[in-house]
């Protein structure tokens, strides 16, 4: 996969595969192309090369069609619908779904994960704190009932305790519903704890990949991203 913003090439031939029902972490420094990779996967930036999802070619398809295939995205910057209420944000997450009763159940499930959202259900989402909006972004993506969840820095702006809680929830969602995840994180230690596999990218290329346990003990990775 290769991708550019206008004339600026960001991804120079990135090749990786995700295993079904597993969590893959995408690690790399700022500007390595992590966010661009996620955007290319869901058609927000045009990418050359081949992107397949469950055997189907999705490269070049429109974002809304890719979402309907079951790829949910927690975008960089959270993507909150600021002028809608918390609950409307959640209902929008399930827009592409047809199973109404299950949607109502899933909304309750999100409130169980994040009780703060329930307290703010009738509030305009723009008035939520950054951390609450991050929870809302994750919940909104889960409301799609995704097969694959793309997470762009889900820990951004969250207090350490809340991050731990969020990662616990992601772990149990993965275990219970078998949602595959591709996780982009600055917090590499945290990411490797959650992930089964990991890829390290540098300036738009995969430089290392393997199981999370392997990479955790890889000296180069440890020095560059884990800081010890």
């Amino acid at each position: 996969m290769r991708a550019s913003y206008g004339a600026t090439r960001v991804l120079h031939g990135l090749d990786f595969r995700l295993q079904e029902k597993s969590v893959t972490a995408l690690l790399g420094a700022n500007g390595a192309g992590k966010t661009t990779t996620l955007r290319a996967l869901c058609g927000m930036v045009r990418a050359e090369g081949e992107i397949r999802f469950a055997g189907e070619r999705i490269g070049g398809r429109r974002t809304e069609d890719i979402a309907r295939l079951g790829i949910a995205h927690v975008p960089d910057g959270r993507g909150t619908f600021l002028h809608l209420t918390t609950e409307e944000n959640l209902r929008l997450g399930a827009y592409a779904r047809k199973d109404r009763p299950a949607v109502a159940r899933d909304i309750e499930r999100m409130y169980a994960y994040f009780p703060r959202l329930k307290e703010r259900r009738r509030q305009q989402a723009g008035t939520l704190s950054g951390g609450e909006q991050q929870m809302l972004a994750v919940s909104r993506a889960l409301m799609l009932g995704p097969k694959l969840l793309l997470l762009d820095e889900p820990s951004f702006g969250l207090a350490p305790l809340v991050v731990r809680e969020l990662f616990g929830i992601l772990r149990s969602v993965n275990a219970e519903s078998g949602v595959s995840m591709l996780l982009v994180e600055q917090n590499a230690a945290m990411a490797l704890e959650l992930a089964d596999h990991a890829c390290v990218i540098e300036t738009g290329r995969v430089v290392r990949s393997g199981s999370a346990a392997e990479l955790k003990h890889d000296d180069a990775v440890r020095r560059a991203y884990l800081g010890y």
Partner: protein
Amino acid sequence: MEAVLLQVLAGLATGSIYASLALALVMIYQATHLVNFAQGEMAMFATYIAWSLVNAGMGYWPAFLLTVLIAFVLGVLIERVVIRPVENAPVLAVVVVFIGLLVILNSIAGWIFSYTIKSFPSPFPAALGIRYMSPHQVGALLVTLLVLALLYVFFRFTPLGLAMRAAAQNPVSSRLVGIRVGWMLALGWGLAAAVGAIAGMMVAPIVYLDPNMMAGILLYAFAAALLGGIDSPGGAVVGGLVVGVLENLLGAFVIGNELKLVVALVLIVGVLLVRPSGFFGSVQVSRV
């Protein structure tokens, strides 16, 4: 006192028509952040379609419903064919497209139906009249209030209405949850055109039917939308009613009927000078 009451009620009747046209303006504004100058001419054209249908022997209400449907389809088509290509064009380019649309619709109407003034029927029975209001005033008020209520329910409580609001506010996130943003915008144009058509059919018996009939009405609707806040649907409705009442009171007691349109212009300039976001609009802050 009775004279004042008479003017207030008459003002509410015309005000409700301004309110629905103002609402059409707000709907387009929320999606495009531009004011559709052709909104009035689209309504005028739809009213001519209704007139043709009634003249061809169709009953008023079937013609009314068919016109609303045709206006909706035309609105969707206009968005798809004319507006879509300039979606990412600079503001002025889009404004020129709107003005072009205005002139084209106006000229086509004049060409097909001629510029002679025609009367347009009112469907409301005499029994609807009350002491201070004519049957048409009561009927127009009821019809527009019904339309506004339906729109409220649609946008507030249906998944499609929610998706349309979402698409107008945040297209990127909307695509990520699977909303077909392009179609939502086209639907918005269709709805705005349909609402405008109803406003046209309700106002035509009062101002009579001719290709320029909506020029004044659109000005009042602008004033209404600005007064309420150009991005606030509720504000547009309140603004419409206020403008209608104000116009009638000032016209009857202060400045005379000839200068009524000036009220709208003074309101537009006044709001832009004193409170550009209107009464209910959100204040826009942008980093430069």
